[in-house]
C-alpha cells in the first residue's frame, strides 16, 4: 500500500477544470516532484492534499487513512508555502514552536528542545530571536522549511519552495533539500515549474498537464523515455521533428526526414508506421566538421558561445534543430558552413 494514495481527484473553479481526475500513488519515504507549466493544476493538487481545497470528486488517503473530509488542521501534514507564510509578529523560535503549541506536542521544555533541533537542522542557530522581516530570503526559506517539518508530519508538502531564491542560492538549497530528505526520509510532495529542480531533487517526477497526469517516473526515465511530445518538450527542450517512420529490412527502424535523407533509429515501443514525431535531445547531437560514416549533412546556423558549451542552430533537410555542444567541438566553425551530425544509437526516440 502506497503512503499517499490519490484517487480520481477532480476540482473545478467555476468553468475552469484545475484537476481532471488525478490518480497517484506515492510510496513511503519518497520525494515526488509534481512538475508542470503554470495553470496545470499542480498547486491545486497540493492544496487538495493539504485540505485547503475540497475536491469535487475523488479521495485522498495517507497511510491508509481516508483524510478527504478531514479539516487541514487535523491532517498532521507539514506544508511550506511559496510565500513562506511566516507569522510576521512572531520570532523565528516562536514561529517554529507554533505547530508544536497548536498540536499540543510535548511540554514547554520539550518544545524548546525541538525548536533548537530544528534550528540546528537548517543551520539557523543564532537566529532564534529574530523576526522574519530581519531575515534574508534564504533564511526565511529555511525557517519555513523547518516549521513545516518540526511537528514530524506524515507528509511534507512543499509549494515552489525554491522559486523565490536567486539562482546560486537555489542551487545550494537544492543540495541541502536532498541532504535533508536523505536524513529524515519524510514522504514529500514538491510542486515546481522548474524541470531542472524536479530532475535533481526528486525520486519520482509526476509531470502534469491541463489538470491531468501526463507521465510518472524516475527523473532519468522521464527524461530519456518521454511518453509524449509534451513530456519531451517540457523536460529539457527537445527537438521534435515530424518524420515518416517505418521498420527497416533486417530489424530496426528507419525515419525519413526529407526525400533522400533517412536515418536508422531503434525500434519504438509503439509500432505504428507512418507519420511520427522524432525526438532529438539538444545535447545528444555531435557536430563535426568532416564527414563520418552514418552522419548526416547539415548547415550550421547561428552559434551562441556560453562558456563551457555553445548553443547552435543547425539546419537539416529543412528542419531547424537546436544543439548544445562542447565549445571545443565548435571552435573555428563559422555559421553557414557545412557540418555533419551524428547521435549515439538509441538516443533518437520515436514518440
Amino acid at each position, binding site marked *: 500500500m502506497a503512503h499517499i494514495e490519490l484517487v480520481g481527484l477532480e476540482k473545478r473553479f467555476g468553468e475552469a477544470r484545475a484537476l481532471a481526475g488525478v490518480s497517484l500513488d506515492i510510496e513511503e519515504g519518497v520525494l515526488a516532484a509534481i512538475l508542470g507549466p503554470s495553470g496545470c493544476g499542480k498547486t491545486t493538487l497540493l492544496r487538495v492534499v493539504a485540505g485547503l481545497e475540497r475536491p469535487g470528486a475523488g479521495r485522498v488517503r495517507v497511510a491508509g487513512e481516508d483524510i478527504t473530509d478531514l479539516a487541514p*488542521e487535523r491532517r498532521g501534514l507539514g506544508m511550506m508555502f511559496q510565500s513562506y*507564510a*511566516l*507569522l510576521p509578529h512572531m520570532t523565528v523560535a516562536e514561529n517554529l514552536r507554533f505547530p508544536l503549541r497548536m498540536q499540543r506536542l510535548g511540554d514547554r521544555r520539550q518544545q524548546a528542545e525541538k525548536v533548537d533541533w530544528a534550528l540546528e537542522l537548517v543551520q539557523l542557530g543564532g537566529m532564534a530571536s529574530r523576526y522574519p522581516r530581519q531575515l534574508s530570503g534564504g533564511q526565511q526559506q529555511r525557517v519555513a522549511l523547518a516549521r513545516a517539518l518540526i511537528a514530524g508530519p506524515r507528509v511534507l508538502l512543499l509549494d515552489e519552495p525554491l522559486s523565490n531564491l536567486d539562482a546560486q542560492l537555489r542551487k545550494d538549497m537544492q543540495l541541502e533539500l536532498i541532504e535533508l530528505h536523505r536524513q529524515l526520509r519524510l514522504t514529500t510532495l514538491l510542486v515546481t515549474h522548474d524541470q531542472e529542480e524536479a530532475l535533481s531533487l526528486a525520486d519520482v517526477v509526476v509531470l502534469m498537464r491541463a489538470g491531468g497526469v501526463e507521465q510518472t517516473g524516475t527523473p532519468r526515465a522521464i527524461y530519456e523515455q518521454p511518453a509524449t511530445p509534451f513530456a519531451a518538450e517540457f523536460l529539457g527542450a527537445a527537438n521534435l521533428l515530424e518524420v515518416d517512420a517505418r521498420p527497416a529490412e533486417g530489424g530496426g527502424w528507419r525515419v525519413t526526414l526529407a526525400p533522400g535523407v533517412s536515418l536508422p533509429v531503434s525500434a519504438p515501443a509503439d509500432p505504428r508506421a507512418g507519420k511520427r514525431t522524432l525526438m532529438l535531445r539538444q545535447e545528444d547531437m555531435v557536430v563535426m566538421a568532416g564527414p563520418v560514416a552514418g552522419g548526416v549533412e547539415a548547415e550550421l546556423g547561428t552559434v551562441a558561445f556560453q562558456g563551457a558549451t555553445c548553443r547552435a542552430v543547425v539546419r537539416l533537410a529543412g528542419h531547424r534543430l537546436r544543439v548544445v555542444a562542447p565549445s571545443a567541438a565548435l571552435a573555428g566553425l563559422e555559421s553557414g558552413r557545412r557540418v555533419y551530425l551524428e547521435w549515439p544509437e538509441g538516443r533518437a526516440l520515436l514518440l
Partner: protein
Amino acid sequence: MVGGVPLAAKAAAAVLVAACVTFMLVPLAVVVASSFSASEFLVFPPRGFSLRWYEEILGSREYTGAAWTSLRLAAVVTALSLLIGTAVAIALVRGRIPGTRTLVALFLSPLVLPTIIFGIGLLMVFSHYGDGPSFTALAVGHVVVTLPYVVRTVAAVLEGADPSVEEAARTMGANAWQRYWHVVIPQCRAGMLAGAFFAFNISFDEAVIALFLRVPGSETLPLTIYSKLEFSPDPSVAAASSVLIGLTVLLVVLMERALGIQSLTR
C-alpha cells in the same frame, strides 16, 4: 531627474503648503495664546500673562466633570468600536460574504452621513423606544460615527497581510479560534491602534450628536466649552481648549512612537 518639475509648479506647491499649514496652525496658536491672558474676557491678542484660567478650569466642577464624562465616553466608545470594527473588518476582508460591496458601503456610510440628521434621528429613536438622552445613547451614537474609522484602518492592514499565513496556521493545527487569536488579530494590531486613536479623538471632540443627546448636568467637554462661549466668554474657554489640543498632540506622539506614521499609510 533633469528638469522634471517646472519652477512655477514648485512655487505653487510651496504657496499651497504654506497656506494649509497657516490655516491649520494659526487658529490653534490664537487659542493657546489667549488662554494665558490676564483679562476677564476672551480677547486676542491676549492682555498680560497669567495662568489663572488654568487654575480656574482645574478648580471648576463644570470643566472637570465634563472632562471626566468625555474621557469615560471616549474610552467606552473606543473599546466598543475596536471590538465591533475589528470583527467587521475581518469579516469583510477575509469572509466570503455575498454582497460584500454593499456591506462595505453601509459600514462606511457614517463618514458621509450628515451628523446633524443622524443626531436628530438618534434622539427620536431613543425618545420613542427608550428614556431619551443618556450616556448609553450618546455612546451608541458615537460608536456609529467612529466605527468606519476602525473598519477602514483594520481592513487596510488586513488587506496588506498575506492570506497564506492563515492557511499555514491551519496546516500547523490551529483551529478557527486559535487562528483569530494567534494569527489574524496580531496582524491587525497596527490598524487597531490607528483606529483606536481616531475613535478616541473623534468621540472626545464630537459636538453635534452630543448636542442632541445631551444629558443636562453631565455634558461632554466640547459642549461645555460651547455653552460657556455662548453665555460667559472668558479665557477659561481657551484654557480648556488648549488642554484638549495638548491631549491630542500627546496622543499623536504616543501613536507615532508605537507605530511610526508610515505604518498608517502603508
